[in-house]
């Protein structure tokens, strides 16, 4: 009799734990769903025209029909920009040939210090399929507007300055529509899934 009761308690325990998991996982997916739906209508992916670290002009029309990733940063960035570039390099090497099916654009918000020469040398540390882009201050401003991104020059002590800037990696689908944000803090598997989904979009 006692053993039967013990068995029942164990079974109920398992049932409760499983129910808990189901509840949490459905809530999580409900939280994610509206976020994606709403980002789909955000104003991201407008016209821009910039120069690559290899000196080639590149604009939104030359990317037509091709999915791409774009993020804003600068080389005088101590942490987020290099880490994002190293992480993207890792993800791309894991995706292998699938990573040939999208472009990755790193747009500097600091064209004053980020010369084409500095960018060309900086980019040798990352996957060679990643393109750094720079423009005049008007061109940079237009690119920021195209992705509803933000950047601002801020003075530091001792005459130096830094750039406040949007950190997210924007995903743009093959049809030019916004496909969400790649967050470097979310699990690696989630990021790989997002990129695979982008390739098949």
């Amino acid at each position: 009799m006692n053993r039967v009761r013990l068995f029942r308690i164990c079974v109920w325990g398992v049932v409760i734990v499983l129910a808990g998991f189901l509840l949490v996982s459905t809530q999580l997916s409900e939280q994610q769903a509206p976020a994606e739906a709403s980002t789909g209508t955000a104003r991201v992916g407008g016209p821009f025209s910039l120069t690559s670290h290899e000196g080639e002009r590149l604009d939104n029309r030359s990317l037509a029909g091709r999915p791409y990733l774009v993020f804003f940063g600068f080389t005088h960035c101590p942490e987020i920009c290099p880490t994002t570039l190293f992480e993207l390099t890792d993800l791309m090497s894991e995706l292998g040939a699938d990573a040939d099916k999208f472009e990755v654009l790193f747009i500097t918000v600091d064209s004053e210090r980020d010369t084409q020469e500095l960018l060309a040398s900086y980019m040798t540390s990352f996957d060679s399929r990643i393109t750094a882009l720079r423009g005049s201050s008007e061109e940079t401003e237009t690119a920021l507007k195209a992705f509803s991104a933000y950047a601002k020059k801020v003075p530091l002590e001792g005459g130096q300055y830094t750039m406040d800037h949007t950190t997210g990696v924007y995903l743009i689908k093959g049809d030019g529509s916004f496909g969400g944000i790649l967050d470097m803090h979310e699990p690696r598997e989630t990021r790989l899934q997002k990129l695979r989904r982008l390739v098949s979009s």
Partner: protein
Amino acid sequence: MSCFNKVAIALGLASITILSSSAASAHDFSAGDIRIGHPWSRIAPAAAPVMGAYLTLTNAGPEADTLVGGSTPLAERIEIHQMSIEGGVARMRSLPDGIEIAPGASVDLAPGGAHLMFIKPARPFAEGDRIEATLEFARAGSVRVEFVVQRNAAKEPDRADDHGGHTP
């Protein structure tokens, strides 16, 4: 109740694995009552004009102390900064008064928060490099430390795989 025991053992094992992987490469320095835990910096891209550096400061003494600066032969200078990310926007500001460590307190300089910044590193930092530096405290004075250069943040478990694929 053996089903509960198994869960408890599994959780225990998981936490031991996490603890041991973060402690694996720790190194410490001290100056007076100040302990400097695991100074580290990330691998740097070629020609990187700046690089963040991180550590944990613990004050075992009865009085507050302040990290006021530092220097290294491997960079033009070291600055103390505060980073914040709000609404998807990253901001960095100088901390000209340094970082105070209250008696008995511990302060983390970590990615996304307060950090030291190496200005104009002499060369790109490669994984496994040890960067000699001197830190200055208002009370404890100067102390020599070594920043270990690693690929991932100090508290993340090391990824054994997937270190290839780069063109340095």
